């Protein structure tokens, strides 16, 4: 299984959630983060001085899915989180070795 971590604009959360749900991906965990990308945040002009805005509020979405679902999830997020403007965000994929449900006696290992 894989964990897909998407860091998106807060304003796009609703759209992303809806689009994922439509494709059947309901489960997810989200939380507020702050971040900046390679370009070192956003640079505002202020009285001629470069004025760096350091860390921008973002939302991180973690979704654990089966290996063969990774591609669909990534594509869906890419489409719905995209505005084409600076700050659209990034997606990371990392391995998950086991999923255990607390309530049910479920154990998924892959």
């Amino acid at each position, binding site marked *: 299984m894989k964990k897909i971590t998407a860091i998106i*604009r*807060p*304003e*796009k*959360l*609703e*759209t992303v959630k809806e689009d994922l749900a439509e494709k059947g991906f309901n489960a997810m965990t989200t939380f507020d983060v702050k971040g900046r990308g390679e370009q070192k945040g*956003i*640079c*505002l*002009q202020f009285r001629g001085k470069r004025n760096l*805005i350091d860390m*921008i*509020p973002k939302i991180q979405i973690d979704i654990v899915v089966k290996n063969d679902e990774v591609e669909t999830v990534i594509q869906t997020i890419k489409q719905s989180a995209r*505005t084409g*403007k*600076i*700050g659209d965000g990034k997606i990371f994929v990392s391995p998950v070795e086991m999923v255990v449900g607390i309530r049910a006696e479920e154990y998924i290992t892959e």
Partner: protein
Amino acid sequence: MNKMVLEAGDTAFVLICTAMVMLMTPAVGLFYGGMVRNKNIISMIALSFISLAIVTIQWVTIGYTLSFGHDIGGLIGGLDYIGLKGVGMDGDGIPDILFMAFQLVFAAIALAILTSGVAERIKLSSFIVFGLLWTTLVYDPLAHWAWGGGWAHSMGALDFAGGTVVHISSGFGALALSFVIGKRIGFGKYSMEPENITTTLLGGALLWFGWFAFNAGSALAADGLAANAFVVTLISAASGALTWMGASWIKGKPSSLGMISGAIAGLVAITPACGFVGPLESIIIGGSAGILCYGTLLFRIHKKFDESLDAWAIHGVGGLFGALATGVFAVAAIGGVDGLIYGNVGQFIIQGIDAFVAVGYSFVMTYILAKIIDKTIGLRVTEEEEYVGLDVAQHGESMEL
């Protein structure tokens, strides 16, 4: 009105009322601040404080005399009181200088209400320039017309505590302003839910508290008329809170935001009427305002107007309704004038003329002023500044939540 002696009870009352109305300006900031995205909450609150600061200086230098100087053609006050010349510590019932201060805090809150139309996207420097112009060219004339001996006053228009002067002007002004500045990026596409409702409720509580001073204080004396204004203010707020909550309940869940918005709608609508109607009328006025303003809000959303925090729906339309309702429900036993339901058609027509002229004047003048500012120094922040939020972009600050 021909005793020239101070009355300590009245002076005490108006002193405290002035402080309470002053508190309403930051309260508008809190009320609005809770409704914007967290990245703009400081900006939203700061705009209210800044409104208070700049209007204070404007008012003591030029605003008061434009509003309350000797009448020039029914349109504006003369410069007799420029820099508060001749506005002294004695007066008729209350000190003249206290009357000046009581009027000052009204002017301040009007500008604060207006910030609804430019929430999350106004450039601070432009707001300061715009605010000074708006107070001088929109608010001051309206204050003169109604209370300073202008044409509306001469015509006999009733506006006990500023439904027209404060609420119509700022509500319709906010709408005009929102048209000029344009919608927030992503409006209608992104979700822009209120993020800090307890702050809004706190602001609402302080507004409600201060509104007693706003309305009852307008009697300028601690008497039966003030008590009546106090009571109808309380009732109208309660009534508005319940009808808006009820109406929204039919469509979904009754939000606390709807409840407090209804209360504010009720408070706005009773403002012009509170010296002219009694308790039972106030139930009707507040209740109708709750429903009407809620409907206006739905209309605004449907029309995709980004008058972002609904000053237009609540203050503008609520104030307009209140002005007309004063002409309908006025009871001679309370304020000396009867309304439409007691057969006084004339008063209703006068109210209509007064209110619609104010609507037109404030909308058009605000629109023109905003356009001029926009074409010259620019009303709006850059796209990137809007994206990072005004707290950081305009003030260099942010909340650590």
